[in-house]
């Protein structure tokens, strides 16, 4: 029986992966020195991808980009000589790559994640997970079908102080799950508590066609997205302003801000049943701004997003029938810290991606809960584009009685791409 590189490493036992293994232990005829580390390849070495070279315990062995200039820069991310690919499928099929790291614009995330799963690779994917609900479903199915580990890369559900709250999410989760605030809860995510929806990611409604730069394979950059004449504002650095590739500030920051809320509300397995928008009409191509987006769960919990400076600055971050949480984690329940001590801590999560790969236990933010928070973002995008309230079935994962909205769940792709 052939053994792939990872099975081989695993056979040595978990600890061995993380320590230097003496050459003689592994030696033999035809011996190729295996690394003590898992290897990874990054697809998309523009601004995002180049910022993600180092996380402990992995070794970069391949990069891929459809822009020759980016690729050239990517090749020099590490001192060693590494493989450089134009076509992401070549990187995915490279037997030296254990982990596929996807740092492309979102319209590629679904396809690349699924392709990586087919090849038996584990996946690290930048947010937002996918730009349609349908692609998110495909990613979930593929990870399960091929037994892969998936990490969506936003981290606020397990690390770092959470914007204006000034605290990691864990104590918020403890407070919420204790029930002391009452139920249902309303969470308002706005600039007033430090959550900026970055309206500079809006598209331009009129783009003059331009000559495609020689270094860019625009056809491959577009991939599954509909063809539109090239203009540089569509691509590197500003693509978030166009519905075909992302969803503006909502797409950029949505999972950062909303995923921890799903987590502390205990909604990782479900989705809101309703989304309402207050926004100007959206251009079919260029993403615009909005005033508010309101999500309601079946049990009455709500997540409210306020764009720009909209809304009352004194509104609590979390409002409940028995208490509120304000900016800087100020809670108005008397003596709440003492009362809260009687409750258990939130359960530990696997926050080391390599541990997750080694033990095959789901990473803290994986394809399933990641899909749920991406779905909130994508529900918002669909409601904005249609400029109306929508009802959603969190089990069937489709909008209720709204054909136009359901057409935006699975958006057809440009040949030869499918998922």
């Amino acid at each position, binding site marked *: 029986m052939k053994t792939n590189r990872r099975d081989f490493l695993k056979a040595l036992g978990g600890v061995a992966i993380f320590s230097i293994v003496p050459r003689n232990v592994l030696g033999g005829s035809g011996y190729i020195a295996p690394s003590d580390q898992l290897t990874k390849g990054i697809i998309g070495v523009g601004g995002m991808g180049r910022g993600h070279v180092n996380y402990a315990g992995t070794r970069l062995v391949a990069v891929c980009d459809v822009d020759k200039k980016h690729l050239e820069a990517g090749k020099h991310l590490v001192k060693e000589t590494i493989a450089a690919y134009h076509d992401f499928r070549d990187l995915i099929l490279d037997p030296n790559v254990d982990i596929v790291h996807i740092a492309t614009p979102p319209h590629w995330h679904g396809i690349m994640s699924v392709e990586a799963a087919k090849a038996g690779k584990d996946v690290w994917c930048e947010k937002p997970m996918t730009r349609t609900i349908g692609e998110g479903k495909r990613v979930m199915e593929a990870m399960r079908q091929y037994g892969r580990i998936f990490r969506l890369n936003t981290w606020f559900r397990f690390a770092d102080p959470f914007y204006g709250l000034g605290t990691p999410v864990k104590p918020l989760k403890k407070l919420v799950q204790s029930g002391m605030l009452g139920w249902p809860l309303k969470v308002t995510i706005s600039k007033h508590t430090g959550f900026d929806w970055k309206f500079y990611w809006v598209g331009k409604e009129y783009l003059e066609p331009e000559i495609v730069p020689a270094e860019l394979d625009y056809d491959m950059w577009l991939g599954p997205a509909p063809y539109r004449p090239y203009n540089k504002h569509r691509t590197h650095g500003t693509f978030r302003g166009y519905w075909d590739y992302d969803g503006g500030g909502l797409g950029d920051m949505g999972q950062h801000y909303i995923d921890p809320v799903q987590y502390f509300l205990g909604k990782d397995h479900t989705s809101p049943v309703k989304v309402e928008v207050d926004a100007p009409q*959206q251009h079919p191509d260029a993403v615009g701004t909005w005033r508010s987006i309101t999500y309601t769960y079946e049990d009455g919990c709500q997540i409210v997003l306020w764009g720009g400076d909209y809304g009352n600055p004194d509104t609590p971050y979390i409002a409940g029938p028995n208490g509120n949480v304000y900016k800087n984690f100020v809670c108005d329940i008397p003596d709440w810290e003492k009362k809260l001590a009687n*409750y258990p801590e939130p359960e530990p999560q696997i926050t080391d991606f390599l541990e997750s790969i080694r033990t095959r236990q789901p990473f803290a933010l994986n394809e399933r809960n990641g899909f749920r928070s991406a779905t909130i973002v994508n529900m918002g995008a669909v409601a904005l584009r249609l400029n109306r309230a929508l009802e959603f079935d969190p089990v069937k994962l489709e909008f209720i009685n709204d054909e136009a909205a359901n057409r935006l769940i699975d958006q057809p792709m440009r040949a030869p791409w499918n998922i």
Partner: protein
Amino acid sequence: MKKIYILLAGIFLLGNTTMSQSPSNRTTKTIIADVLAQMPADKQAAYDELIAGLTSTGEEGVIYLVNTINAPGKGTNAPTDYALSGLAHYVSDKGQENARLIVAGAYVKALDIATERETKAFIIRELQICGRDECVDALGQYLAIEDLSGPAARALANINTEKAKQALQAALLRRMGTPKTQQDVILAVGEAKIKINEELISGMIGKGSEEMQKLVLYAISRIGTEKSLEIVRNAAAAAGYKTDKTGANEAYIALIKKIAAEGNAKVAEKAAGDLLDAAMKAGQTQTRIAALEILFSQSSDPTKLLLSSLKDQSGEYRNSALNFASAYSNREMYAGVLKSLPKAKNEVKTDILNWIGRESKINKPDLPYKKNITDQLKDPDLEVRQAAASALMKIGDISTIPALAELLENNDPPVVKAGQNALESFDGDIIPSLVKTIPASADAGKVAALQLLALRKADKAFDTVLEQVKSGSPEVKKAAYATLKDVVVEKDFPLLCSMLESAEEDAIAPLQQAIIASIASQSAADRFAGVSKKMSQVEENKKYLYYIVLSATGDKQALPVIVSGFKNENGIAKDAAFDAIYNWKGIEAANELYAVCTDISGAAYFDRALTAYVRLVSLPALTPENRFISLRKAMEIAKTEDQKNNILRRIGQTETFPAMIYAGDFLDNKPVQQTAANAVMNISANHSEYTGQIVRDLLEKVIQVLDNPDAGYQREAIRKQLNEMPEEEPFKLSDEEEKEGFKVLFDGTNMHEWVGNTVDYTLKRGHISLIPSSSFGGNLYTKSEYGNFVFRFEFQLTPAANNGLGIRTPMEGDAAYVGMELQIIDNEDPVYKNLQKYQYHGSVYGVIPAKRGFLKPLGEWNYQEVIADGDHIKITLNGEVILDGNIREASKNGTIDGKQHPGLLNKTGHIGFLGHGSPVKFRNIRIKELK
């Protein structure tokens, strides 16, 4: 205001409270111009109203709009995009079927008319939204045309009716088009799962390019049956049962899944079993897993399948088996797995325990053989123990708490950690078990138990903690001291005080914290009284131990005591008094801290004193102005760059005008330049009322110096702000106008001369700004009536803006007819390509056309003079006479618009701005009456 409608009394009943003029009876072109000028609608109601209007224009409107689409690179299509896509979305709504049919029909016609490839693609994309069966034929024509076959195939796949399927199938059967268009069609066939003769597709396997193969295999995996199984399997075998660019392996898996889902269990199970073996030989774990998923879906005995899968070498495979089994888990399955647990290999044990934990969270099962799990807490393998502890925590049976607590008694720190993690998140009373475990534990276990007691604020366990304070090893002692503050209550105060008074150095800080915590529930005054009393009883050289406690009482009487300590004491006691001032939470300490900063003898305390001062005077207890003044004082004595930057940042946060000017003084001071620039920028952004040349100059300077990754966006925002910043001086008549007898109607400071819709027309520093709240902005009139006059004013337009100057008009009714309307319109905008001449800017609406082409570019102020002298009307725009005519002459044989203008020859009336839904600005308005 150019709308053409008959005034209906009923409209006012339907409309909103402002003088919304509902646009009934408008011509198609007028409706379209309104839509184009007002899209994108800001509010849903306005959007609905506009699109409903557009819908009423039917085919004519759509075709008109499509004709206005510019070729790529030949000018913006944004207004048309908004209108057409709004229309497509609107009519595809429920209850709009008739409108949808008309609109879709119009798109189909427009598709023929359009010549540009991009225009056609745009229309097809709109049909993808609103098209249904009736569009199939039209779309089908494009299936063989490269560049349009993609959108057309996608639209047809979206329509997904029988007819759409036939159109796609026909394109394949006839083999029309090129390989590229064929690919588009095959992809669409696959996506829509069109049931065509599968051999048509499977016959293409192995032929054509890699990309073609990929699509053919994808399509066959979506529409194929048992008949195609062999040929696809052969392709997968050729690919080595692993993924390649053709996707043969995945197509084979998908096809077996499809056959299984369609109920052909026997064939599917056999194929999946064979695939499992083949993938094993090929060493493709992920393919084996995929085959296993199918086997689970077909298995009559999932428990048996799971148990055999758990014997596999590959952890990926075992864990996938457990994941798949979750869909079928029941008591029998848990029993089977847990019975196998004691004899399983270590890594399998870990997998099973992790799975049991996950299952417990989801299904909360009543598990058999629970003892087998608890037994694993004693397994020699660390990972097994960790997994067992975690699983027990998730199961949450409180009878297992003692067993978990026993892990703390282990000598191996990672085992202790596993127990601590499990207990931390355990939902139940863990305190008694912790208390029990401490004496039996080694240091690591004791520390863990103490930390858990602190986390649960276990005041019941105070004595246990105290015991460790007394007798623990240094490490344990430290942890016990740190725990005290979380387990004390009021009655512990005297004991803690006596401990403090005799404490070794390391213990002082935690004991002080514990004392503070013990009296936290008292009032500030009681706290002060209690602590003072203690201080009075203690020896002089121990008093300093209480300064920080005094500070934490927050009682105002405490501050002088501390300050006097700072002034009079030396050494440790002085330091302690300073710490107490430093930690004081109220504004009262600000002056004391400033005094420390300016006192030479306080040099050692300078940095911390300044930091604390700045923190306190930045509190909202002070007004923004006072905060600024206090911070400026700090800036004057600040020494380091860090200090200065910090102060400047805080100054910026006061958001006062003096703060902006002050920060501006530092824009050339390199070390603090960026902080200063940010301060100026942020204050200015939040306070558009701060205007004038000084502010302009500061912002220009900021644009130059900004240096950070977002600077590009920031510069753009500042420029926008500068453009919007108003002139400030009230308008004054020139000497000449003064002499001639002009009178000011609006000088930028008040709207005393105006009545009507003062909700939408508001005074914005220096000008009247119309921001329409409803679709049509309503009208603003002069209070007085004027007959013959010279009227001079300035106005600024926004893209496609439409307004009008009414003269000699009553306040009710449409001034264009009941009085006279002189058009104000951005007639250069492409949406007005097809305006009638009598609708140009300056025209006497419907009566006398004006010359076009003398408006200033958008965003600049236009200057216009209107002379109305009897029947003679003369209009001069930006120095050019654009209209000079006689209204009586012009209307004697009927007006050119063919409408009745009963008010045209009114002798007198109001002058008014006639809103038409677009933002417009006016300023510097004056009039001279002619006798």
